């Protein structure tokens, strides 16, 4: 066994993983019959179809030669994702200003050529803009400051 088309192979594996999850979950819902489709009917159908696609991709990748997967740059994605999660954790207790400054600073760090001072100015500007536009002008329900104030 030799993987000749890594991009296709891993796409197939990804589809198979989703298909398996869907079919295992759908197994717990009643299938019903074609005339009276239960909540599991359509998901099971889709899961089966997705599994088929996954199998075809994996099988094909063992026969036909294709592209390799480019290098996965873990750092930028991980840093940005951490920033997003941080925003989620901070927003309700600490307010929009703190959460937005945090996510901007963390995300800016993901770029290779970030300057700390520039990022700080950007974060402050974004926070001011967002409070002005989203909270004051558009009245979106966002806490601005930490809730203890």
């Amino acid at each position: 066994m030799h993987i000749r088309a890594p991009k296709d192979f891993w796409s197939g594996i990804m589809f198979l993983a989703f298909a398996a999850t869907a079919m295992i979950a759908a197994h717990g819902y009643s299938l019903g019959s074609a005339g009276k489709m239960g909540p599991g009917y359509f998901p099971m159908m889709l899961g089966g179809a997705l599994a088929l696609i996954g199998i075809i991709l994996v099988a094909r990748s063992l026969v036909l030669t294709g592209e390799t997967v480019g290098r996965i740059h873990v750092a930028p994605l991980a840093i940005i994702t951490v920033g997003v999660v941080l925003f989620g954790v901070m927003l309700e207790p600490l307010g929009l200003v703190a959460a937005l400054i945090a996510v901007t600073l963390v995300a800016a760090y993901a770029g290779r050529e970030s300057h700390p001072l520039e990022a700080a100015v950007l974060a402050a500007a974004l926070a001011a803009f967002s409070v002005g536009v989203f909270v004051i002008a558009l009245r979106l329900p966002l806490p601005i400051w930490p809730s203890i104030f």
Partner: protein
Amino acid sequence: MEMLSNLAVGFSVALTVQNILYCFTGVLLGTMVGVLPGIGPVTTVAMLLPISFTLPPESALILLAGIYYGAQYGGSTTAILVNIPGEASSVVTTIDGHQMARQGRAGPALGIAAIGSFFAGSVATLLICFAAPPLAAIALNFGPAEYFSLMVCGLIAAIVLARGSVIKAIGMVILGLLLGIAGTDVNSGIRRFTFGFQDMADGIEFVALSMAIYGIAECAYNLERKAEEADVTGTIGNVWPSLTDIRHCTPAVLRGTVLGSLLGVLPGGGALLAAFGAYTLEKKVAKPPRSFGDGDIRGVAAPESANNAGAQTSFIPMLTLGIPSNPTMAMMIGALMIHGISPGPRVMTERPELFWGLIASMWIGNLLLVVLNLPLVGMWVKLLRIPYRLLFPAIVGFCCIGAYTVNSNIFDVYVMAFFAIFGYLCLKLDCEPAPLILGFVLGPLMEENLRRALLLSRGDLMVLIEEPLSLIFLIAAAVLLLVVAAPAIRQKREEALQE
């Protein structure tokens, strides 16, 4: 006569101070993101979805639509002056447009792009006026079987006309359908794919999913590639093309408009396909053909007219059938659904102010764009100097705010973080996210229509091929699939899409 009264309703909506302002904001933002490489209309519409929920539905639609067609204008500016497509749909404009700029003819190139776009946009809007009502009237008679097959056909067509591997695209559609039906099943009340999360009862939030993929994942992906230096070409000069230029371009603009309008209606079509198609056609039919590639003004006029025409007519399937032809349209459907409006043939009769108001706003928007684009070109060029390292943290921040504000629920922010990782992997594996978004929007509708069709036929699947219209849609879908599967045609398709 009816058309006139419809248009009167439309203009009475579009010409209110508030809606002119939203239209203006839309096209201004659209031009801005069109000019900026690395941020496109899909990302922008996704980021603005939460704001649009606070507006009345017609204003929301006017704003979001303006972004989409506004971006087609902005994209050409970057293509001509910097040789980088500001938008995917202006890739072909770089070929002749940038050559013209190097020969000192940047002004006329920008001018003809704007004039061609305006002409094409006006014609395409008129086409929507005439084509949409009869199409909606036909669609009103569709039963569940027809609707199901139509959606199958639409999704398949979207795959075939999109770039990349067909089989992966089918996988992405199915995955999108699966993600779309997560949450409480309307018929049984059972919660599907919620994995024990209380917050998943309403399913996966569309805004969070689309911002994850088009906002966050794309930022991470763009950071890997070396930033292209914006090298703005000299002076712009007079933007008015000479009479000779105009005479030279008229057939190209006309052909671009017609082809763009037609390709825009197709699922998977829209602006991108229109521009590619028009440039290829122009190279084949224009006489004399020699100068394409060395700054032929027709090589700017045709694709720029076509992409704007295509951007307008891609609203037709969304407005009349409730079927999105591209991810931006899927987002418009998402915006309407949040307002409790289910897009489809009934919108036109039940909410005429919404439908005709949008159409009327497109005329106004196109006019505003010509005004914005030509005199302000210097300002747009300055915008190009904003480095990506300042842009992407802002995108990430706005996505976070957007994901939270849709439901005031922190859970949606975490959903976005999860799908950002997923979206990045998809980009790495060359799995196009567009089919996933289309599938996501259509998932619940497809299930419901299939359920109803099979309920009426008592479980007989043959109903899908016994209804004549339904059979036609399925045959069309099958033919499309066979066509791409055939090796000779597949090669042609790849050539046409790569060009």
